[in-house]
């Protein structure tokens, strides 16, 4: 029987009270007369108050009515109590819509249903959720946590449930986490269910409040440090995914389901061997219940990743290599909820990942290498760099634009110059995705992209100025989503007036014919302004008005299509 919202609330409250009870009595074991640690209460509040403009209208309604405009309030409060080695924390997320309805023949019509099937709340256009809660213990040789925590093994290939708020992802593992240190050995064990955030902090929440889908994750990792210059590690992780048929299941029911994916791997790390820092990891992916992940014949996958760094003279050299085959499938179910549970290093420069190259990042059949050299021309001040990425993407179909395997070449040159009050951070690159010819010698050409990133900082009297931006020019080959060549320009200029006051102007320009947003100045041009205030320590306010374009954004190997925005926004971050 599915849990009712009331039952879920009561359960959460009981868990919280239990945690508080344990917390308050946690130091009862301390001897008589021993000084009891004080309780510290601290936290952070993130508030956004957004006005969404929408130019759509309905027949017989005057255009100036702006029927579909609405206000959205989003709040996230984190509170934690620390007492000696114990910590209790909660995160409360809430969203409310104002003015998201209109009257048709005196009957109120809500513009959208905020709650997806399986989500209920007493108010039709609001939702609040105790999204995270945890009780932790931090001892000298043991770290224990019950509730919501974050975890990654190795380089993230087998398990990587970490905060990625850069693209509005906060999925935790709700369960038990333990790390025990025994001399040179670390033993890490986790077991629980995935807990994805339900309230988006940066993206529109309309029609997006979905029920939690409890996917079971259990993992174990052993590390042995200090074997001479070596660290050795081994891990195993099993996943059991809640398919759509299991959406009403209780969290613990994941332990009764069959295993959909099992990953086992090992890593070795060496420091300073012949002047090199080395890391290598290999993982084997088994899909015993692979049909839920779209794996035919349950064929296994594997991943190999390695890096080597050397520091001869004033040069820092980094070489990374990867070969991933059928590893991305482990994310097939959770990606529908816009997050991933296991992602390895992509080796790609993420600021220029596009809809096309994003598919290569998440390819199920890709090999690649990335070389980067930084030179301390003037240590700490002037650092030029060269990067070269080489990839071979063999996966076709799906999100991929390519009908044939492609070879990707991506050189980038950059320079960092950071003086006392002036800085220049700049790079430029050119990426070519060259497709193999089809049988019969049919050429599919190549997708190409030229890009420049720039950030300048300089004094303006007693104030300080910054100019930043990036320019990308796309030239398309012959692909299924044929597009005309287009340009993307994003720029900003800021003046920091001191005393925590800054004024920022933003502009986007693009002639991308497939973009999912429209400029507020004209069809191609977007403009916005923002006032930023820091009236006190740990307190930031931002008032934004204008528009920015839609587009893909990637961080930490994960990519999301972010919608455009047109309207006003007040955001506040307050530490307490």
């Amino acid at each position, binding site marked *: 029987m599915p849990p009712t919202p009331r039952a879920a609330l009561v359960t959460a409250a009981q868990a919280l009270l239990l945690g508080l009870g344990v917390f308050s009595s946690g130091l009862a074991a301390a001897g008589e007369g021993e000084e009891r*640690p*004080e309780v*510290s*209460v*601290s936290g*952070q*509040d*993130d*508030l956004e*108050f957004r006005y969404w403009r929408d130019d759509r209208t309905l027949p017989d309604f005057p255009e100036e009515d702006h029927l579909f405009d609405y206000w959205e*309030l989003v709040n*996230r409060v984190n509170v*934690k109590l*620390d007492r000696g*080695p114990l910590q209790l*924390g909660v*995160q409360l997320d*809430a969203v409310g819509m*104002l003015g998201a309805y209109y009257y048709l023949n005196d009957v109120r019509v809500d513009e959208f249903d905020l709650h997806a099937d399986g989500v209920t709340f007493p108010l039709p256009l*609001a939702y609040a959720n105790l999204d995270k809660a945890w009780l932790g213990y*931090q001892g000298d040789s043991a*770290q224990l946590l019950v509730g919501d*925590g*974050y975890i*990654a093994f190795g380089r*993230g290939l087998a398990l*990587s449930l*970490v*905060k990625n708020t*850069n693209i509005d992802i906060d999925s935790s593992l709700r369960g038990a986490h333990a790390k025990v240190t025994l001399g040179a050995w670390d033993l890490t064990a986790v077991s629980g269910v995935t807990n994805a955030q339900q309230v988006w902090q940066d993206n529109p929440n309309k029609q997006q409040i979905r029920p939690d889908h409890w996917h079971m994750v259990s993992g174990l990792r052993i590390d042995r440090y*200090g074997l001479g210059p070596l660290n050795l590690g081994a891990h195993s992780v099993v996943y059991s995914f809640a398919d759509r048929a299991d959406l009403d299941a209780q969290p613990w029911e994941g332990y009764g389901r069959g295993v959909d994916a099992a990953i086992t791997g090992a890593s070795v790390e060496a*420091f300073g061997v012949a002047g090199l820092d080395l890391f290598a990891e290999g993982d084997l992916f088994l899909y015993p219940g692979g049909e839920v992940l779209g794996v035919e014949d349950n064929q296994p996958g594997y991943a190999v990743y390695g890096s080597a*760094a050397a*520091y001869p003279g004033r*040069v820092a*050299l980094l070489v990374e290599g990867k070969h991933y085959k059928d590893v991305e499938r482990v994310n097939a179910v959770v990606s529908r909820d816009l997050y991933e549970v296991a992602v390895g*290093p*992509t080796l790609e420069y993420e*600021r220029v990942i596009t809809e096309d190259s994003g598919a290569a990042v998440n390819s199920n059949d890709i090999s690649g290498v990335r070389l*980067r050299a*930084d030179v*301390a021309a003037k*240590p*700490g001040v002037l650092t030029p760099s060269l990067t070269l990425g080489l990839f071979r993407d063999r996966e076709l179909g799906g999100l991929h634009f390519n009908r044939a395997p492609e070879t990707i070449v991506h050189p980038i040159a950059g320079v960092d110059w*950071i003086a006392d*009050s002036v800085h220049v*951070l700049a790079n430029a690159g050119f990426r070519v995705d060259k497709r193999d010819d089809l049988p019969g010698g049919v050429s599919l050409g190549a997708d190409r992209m030229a890009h420049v990133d720039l950030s300048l*900082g300089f004094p303006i009297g007693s104030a300080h100025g910054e100019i930043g931006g990036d320019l990308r020019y796309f030239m398309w080959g012959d692909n299924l989503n044929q597009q005309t060549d287009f340009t993307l320009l994003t720029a900003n200029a800021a003046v*920091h007036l001191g005393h925590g006051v800054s004024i920022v102007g933003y502009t986007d320009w693009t002639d991308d014919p497939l973009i999912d947003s429209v400029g507020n100045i004209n069809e191609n041009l977007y403009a916005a302004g923002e006032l930023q205030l*820091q009236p*006190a*320590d*740990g*307190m*930031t306010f931002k008032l934004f008005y204008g528009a920015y374009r839609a587009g893909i954004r990637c961080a*930490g*190997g994960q990519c999301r299509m972010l919608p455009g925005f047109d309207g006003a926004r007040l955001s506040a*971050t*307050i530490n*307490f």
Partner: protein
Amino acid sequence: MRRWLALILVFTFALVAPGTNPRAGEGQAAPEFTLRDIDNKPVSLKDMTGKVTLISFWATWCAPCQVEMPHLQKLYDTYKDKGFMLLMISADDARSVSRVKPLIKSKGYSFPVLLDTDTKVVSQYNPNKTLPYSELIGPDLKVLWQHQGYTAGDEVETERRVKAALDALAAATPPAVAPTATP
């Protein structure tokens, strides 16, 4: 209408109630952690007892962090022998952590750099993970000051805070007994 009012009140409370503490976080215990540095040595916050410690969260992909770093290196060079410690905690996760040490080496920085690859520590100190983010920790491991972001000139206030904390530490530390002069 009453529903709207209730909603507004809830949000207003959430915003205003925390704001009643204008000196954010001051006096609170800094969450304990143990992380490995880029040379594989474990470092715990409790090892910093008796020192003034600036914890600064950053990442290889964070441009303002790169601009702030030379100032933090100067701060470290100036005060490291006077009871000051700087802990630069990289919030790069497992997927980009390989780039951390080469970046530090390429700039010639010598401050300690710790790795928080599963984002546990940054989530404790700064849940919204805005970078850079700094906390100044006193010798009793309580928070003295918090600061979000970096714009040019912020380093002046950071140094003022560090110097004030070191002055307070020096004032609270009994002077060492001078060795008895020998004939």
